[in-house]
């Protein structure tokens, strides 16, 4: 029997003329989208202190490692052809206290860059680093599909930055 998750995203902003929390446009904005997605496996973990030294291949629950998704390790469920769409859905939240001005970085790289114990990824704190897909301030979040075509990994601009990670495998 298929299993479903139901994500909903709304985005609102006020007109730019309002005094409290003005938006970027002359008109108020209200976008909303919802979907029902068929999934099977759920992978969830939190990282209380992201390794902010050299990012290292390995599961963050097993030491000072930074891999969020190892594409090749999940290749059995990866998208193999243009007509077979599996992959997964990812939710990442920077759960560091909002008083932090530091950043959590998310990198995306060729799976061959690090494939086993002791291998490392590119540091993401460098300006213009083209392995850095995005940065999350405390409280920021992302929701997106991922096709297991490479590795997703994390890094941070300082110690004691935390994140929460969810992966829902497409059924």
């Amino acid at each position, binding site marked *: 029997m298929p299993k479903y998750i139901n994500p909903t995203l709304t985005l609102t902003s006020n007109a730019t003329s309002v005094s409290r929390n003005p*938006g970027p446009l002359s008109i108020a904005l209200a976008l909303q989208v919802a979907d029902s997605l068929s999934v099977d496996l759920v992978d969830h973990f939190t990282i209380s202190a992201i390794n902010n030294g050299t990012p290292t291949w390995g599961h963050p629950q097993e030491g000072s490692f930074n891999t969020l998704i190892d594409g090749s390790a999940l290749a059995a469920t990866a998208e193999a052809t243009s007509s077979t769409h599996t992959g997964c859905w990812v939710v990442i939240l920077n759960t560091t206290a909002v008083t932090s001005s530091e950043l959590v970085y998310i990198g995306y790289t060729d799976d061959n860059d690090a494939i086993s114990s002791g291998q490392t990824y590119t540091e993401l704190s460098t300006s213009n*680093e083209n392995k850095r897909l995005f940065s999350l301030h405390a409280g920021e979040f992302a929701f997106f599909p991922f096709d297991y075509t490479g590795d997703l990994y994390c890094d941070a601009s300082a110690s004691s930055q935390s994140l929460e990670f969810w992966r829902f495998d497409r059924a």
Partner: protein
Amino acid sequence: MAKIKPSFTLTSNKSTASSNAGPLRVALSLSASDLLDVDSVRSEIVTVGTSEAILIDGSATNGGPGTGGTAGGYIWMQNTTASGTNVIYIGTNTSANNAAVDLIGSPGANVNRLFTLKVGEFAWIPFDYNMDIIVDANAADQQLEYWLFDRA
């Protein structure tokens, strides 16, 4: 300073539910919201076909790449094709390349494809302008709506 407020919820029923069963033994209810400082807004509805194209040129957008958390923006993206089983592919390329690359292929053959959007599917993802965002599709005339909110 201009602000936007994204809110995200993800729910699922227990796996034992008789309709729309979820993947876990327990019901799930995740939520997150934030108030983000932004300045410029860019939005477009584009037709995507089987020829890959650059959707967002990181180096040419709002001052281009720079320091994490300062340079960059937030992308709302949805496959708004009316119906069908075809898909839109979203990929990346290092900004220095400034070239679209084919996103259709096996995982081992094409690391540039980040994800796939079926009809109706959506994503909310910050983006640091350190790469280009590339679009491709497995058929002609697929429709993608995106909004890019530049970090203030």
